[in-house]
């Protein structure tokens, strides 16, 4: 592949399930070596998009090239060049870590002579070399996820797809997973395409596309996105939220939103605005906070919902994972 060829090239990609349009025409390019993030609430079409790029779902319109190959016409060439880490676990708990990797190498036809060295390398990279002989069912959630990431890297793919790689993990494990992904990405010069719900994880990306209701609403680097929001976020709790919103519009010309029992709006120089707010609002204020813009604000500004609304739906995924983990020994 020519280094100038984009790792991923998507043109007006669409997917409908009957009447429902899950993805309504998305276009973007991902450069080789880039870490590209897909952000959006559940049902935004992130997983559908990733499934089309991984050849797991057929597009109903548009085109996509991954590692220079068409995802429909050259399905096997795409599959040879990508690694996948799914939202749901796909390890065999009865096999050892080593056996899981060996299985993967055989399925992908990796030259037998190279497998042991490569296996040692990816297992050491994710810190599981010592546990290679242990059955995967004895692993914690974080260890399993690390093993899946190692497996995704095993056949030296050009593009690694990570669908919610840290879902259901505790914050400490999440950050360690991220350290591994970054380290692997640097040593292998691989392109990473990932989806996430967690705003703080989006900061690890070189570029981010925010997706909502099947379309990309904005695509830029995390810094540029934050700069675009510009203003500080002010959140107030009041005795009467509706009155406060009305008063903000009338007296300051500010458009505010009510979310999660508080009123949120954006102003330049938030600290200096707060004294005026108390003096002139005319609605009793119980609490106030001012914060510099975060990706959460970018998300809010472009989709009209907070990332927490989006996270509500992940609770379901987490329960499902717990249930699977509990029934894991019954197989």
């Amino acid at each position, binding site marked *: 592949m020519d280094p100038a060829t984009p790792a991923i090239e998507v043109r007006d990609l669409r997917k409908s399930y009957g009447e429902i349009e899950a993805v309504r025409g998305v276009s973007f390019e991902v450069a080789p070596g880039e870490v590209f993030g897909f952000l959006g609430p559940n049902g935004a079409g992130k997983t559908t998009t990733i499934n089309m790029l991984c050849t797991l779902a057929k597009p109903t319109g548009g085109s996509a090239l991954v590692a220079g190959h068409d995802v429909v016409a050259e399905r096997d060439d795409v599959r040879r060049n990508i690694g996948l880490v799914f939202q749901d676990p796909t390890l065999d708990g009865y096999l050892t870590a080593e056996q899981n990797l060996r299985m993967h190498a055989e399925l992908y036809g990796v030259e037998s002579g190279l497998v042991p060295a490569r296996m040692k390398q990816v297992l050491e990279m994710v810190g599981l070399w010592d546990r290679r002989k242990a059955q995967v069912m004895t692993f914690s959630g974080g260890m399993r996820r690390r093993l899946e990431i190692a497996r995704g890297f095993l056949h030296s793919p050009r593009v690694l797809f990570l669908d919610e790689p840290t879902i259901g993990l505790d914050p400490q494990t999440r950050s360690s997973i991220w350290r591994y992904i970054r380290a692997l990405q640097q*040593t292998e010069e691989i392109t990473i395409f990932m989806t996430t719900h967690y705003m703080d994880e989006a900061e690890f990306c070189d570029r981010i596309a925010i997706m909502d209701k099947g379309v990309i609403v904005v695509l830029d680097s995390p810094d540029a996105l934050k700069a675009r929001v510009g203003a500080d976020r002010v959140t107030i709790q009041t005795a009467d939220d509706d009155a406060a919103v009305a008063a903000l519009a009338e007296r300051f010309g500010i458009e505010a939103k009510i979310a999660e029992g508080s009123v949120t709006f954006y102003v330049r120089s938030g600290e200096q605005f707060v004294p005026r707010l108390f003096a002139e609002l005319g609605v009793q204020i119980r609490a106030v906070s001012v914060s510099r813009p975060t990706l959460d604000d970018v998300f809010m500004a472009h989709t009209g919902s907070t990332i927490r609304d989006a996270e509500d739906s992940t609770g379901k995924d987490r329960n499902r994972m717990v249930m699977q983990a509990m029934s894991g020994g019954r197989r």
Partner: protein
Amino acid sequence: MSATDTTTTEPPAPDTTPVARVVVPPRSFRSEVRAVKIVFRRELIRFRSDRVRIATSLIQPLLFLFVLGSGLQQLSKFGTHGVDLKTFIYPGILCISVMFTAMFSAASIVWDREFGFLREMMVAPIRRSSIVIGKCLGGACVSSLQGVVLICLAGVVHVPYDPILLLGIFGLQLLLAFSITAFGVMVAARIKQIQAFMGVMQMIVMPMFFISGALFPVSGLPGWLAVLNRIDPLTYAVDPMRRLVFGHLHITAAARAALDPGLTWWGWHLPAVFEVGVVLVLGLVMLGIAIWEFGATE
């Protein structure tokens, strides 16, 4: 679930030594064969680590053989012309034992889907048919290995340990196990919940077992049962198995005529080879359908 040892999840400094890069070659016949082999091997590896399954899958056949066989002996000793009832039902039990174990082997593809591992196989750059073939061969092999325990019991039911006979039994078990596994995998392409799958398999397999003649001679049946018996695919595995075993027994001609009459279609005595062919063809057809079904899913 065990072991959520948080100390081991804390990473050491990631290693950034130069990479042992590997290449995934384009798909070829050789890579498909490798895929079939590893799917097959996985079945064997998992079988080895699953001793409970081996033990429990033998309970039912052993109950039939020794409890039913010994118990009904009181009633049937005049009808069997002096042949032990256990000896008579032994060929049938050999068949049903692999049938039950093959059913569990096929269920493993449903478990694989439920626990996500099927997805790992489905996204690999290989044909779906390689996965299905590997599964069916692996399942057949695992089921027949469990059947070996019953072969070892031949002496207990007065069947001689003749090497030719034992090999023949094993071969027939392997074939039957393959066909049943293929049938199960075909069903598994459509029925995706394990409870529903086991329910459907029980619903189909139990009547097949009772109608097949595993527990009774197939001549002189009431008309309706004779018809059902000839339709039941398992009949065509039980009959050659019984002919094989009875061919190595020293019993009176009267006993042979009563207990091992052989299958007939409108008076035509089916050759054993033909019966075996029926089982093989059915197995291959179901394998074909299973491949087609798995290939068609996204």
